[in-house]
């Protein structure tokens, strides 16, 4: 009882001090955070752009030039202007002779911990996926993050079948199967110990390829007819 009244007695004098302390620390904190954000931003954007470029070269071997495109609602490709944020971003990669190597497509989906963002390379001439990279993931270190490092898993994406059937759709949707049970060219061999993450990769690729690959293939056919 006496303690309670004590606190009441102290309050008027102290609350001003408390408020001052909290606001003061809050201002210092805000200043520090904004400062470090501003200081690191240019470098972080540069590193991210570099990482993206490296990933494109990785998924489209032989590429020297890249060009960013977006996919419009009517299924046409358009060049991305500065500041554009289309739903699907993709990069056309050309080799040193100016010939098209393929398209690198960004895709994302829910993983075990958070969104997983990936980039895959599509070769329209061969109608296969020829490369795959994880751009961003918060999957469990040592387990789920094997989707980015595991060599056996990465081997899945050297030739993943995404042929188009006559009606203009994907013949087979990409899917992840249990480790060691891959039988068809459009199946991804999963990882034991990273079941959810490797399945998520299958889902992301399945969704993205069934939307984007038909568009890209149409586009590729038109362009090669024109030449």
């Amino acid at each position: 009882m006496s303690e309670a009244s004590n606190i009441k007695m102290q309050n008027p004098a102290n609350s001003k001090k408390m408020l001052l302390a909290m606001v003061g620390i809050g201002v210092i904190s805000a200043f520090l955070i904004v400062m470090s954000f501003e200081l690191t931003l240019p470098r972080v954007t540069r590193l991210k752009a570099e990482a993206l470029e490296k990933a494109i070269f990785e998924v489209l071997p032989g590429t020297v030039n890249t060009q960013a495109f977006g996919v419009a609602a009517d299924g046409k490709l358009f060049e991305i202007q500065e500041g554009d944020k289309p739903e699907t971003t993709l990069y056309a990669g050309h080799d040193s002779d100016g010939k098209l190597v393929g398209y690198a497509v960004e895709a994302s989906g829910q993983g075990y911990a958070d969104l997983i963002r990936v980039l895959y390379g599509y070769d329209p001439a061969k109608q296969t996926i020829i490369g795959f990279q994880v751009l961003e993931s918060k999957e469990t270190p040592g387990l789920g993050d094997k989707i980015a490092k595991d060599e056996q898993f990465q081997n899945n994406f050297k030739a993943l079948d995404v042929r188009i059937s006559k009606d203009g759709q994907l013949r087979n949707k990409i899917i992840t199967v249990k480790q060691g049970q891959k039988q068809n060219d459009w199946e991804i061999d999963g990882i034991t110990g990273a079941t959810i993450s490797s399945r998520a990769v299958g889902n992301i690729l399945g969704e993205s390829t069934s939307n984007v690959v038909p568009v890209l293939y149409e586009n590729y056919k038109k362009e090669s007819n024109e030449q």
Partner: protein
Amino acid sequence: MSNEKQKVTSTDEFIKGLWRDNPVFVQVLGMCPTLAVTNTAENALAMGLATAFVLLMSNILVSLLRNFVPKQVRIASYILIIATFVTVTDYAIQAISVELHKSLGAFISLIVVNCLILSRAEAFASKNSVGRSILDALGMGLGFTFALFCLGAVREILGNGSIFDMSIFPEGYQSWIVMILPAGGFFTLAAWLLVINKVQTKKAKS
């Protein structure tokens, strides 16, 4: 009381965190990152250093403000200070290497709730001068990093057959997956605690 404090030499302040009062092996603080991020030596080292940095910076600021913050709101202000430096560290790590940021993932933000940092702010920095707080933070931070590395190295060697991503066992080695799973963290921590306790009791007896 203050006389007694003066007797503790500066080196003592630094050394105690490394061995006698090691935050992981003796105080058993900060178990969340200790168990979660120590599945490889590299992750453990990066996490330890990030934590040490946050500990150092928050100790400095808490010590500087120790006469200014009223008692009633001290915990709230410590948490605010710690959260600030965790955010700063997050940006810094991103600027150093996107790869490293990728591999530490969500655990950087979780440094905020590491009770080691809060306990040093409350038990030490809020009662001692800036210089001593820096020494204390350095000792505790390095002790924490050292302990994390001990766990990470053992778990990576047994669970993955490698150290710093370099294979050290011949091709046929069957790795113990359990060691990089959460259960392996508990096993390894228990084993280390056993060893450290044995050594310390032996020392106390002699």
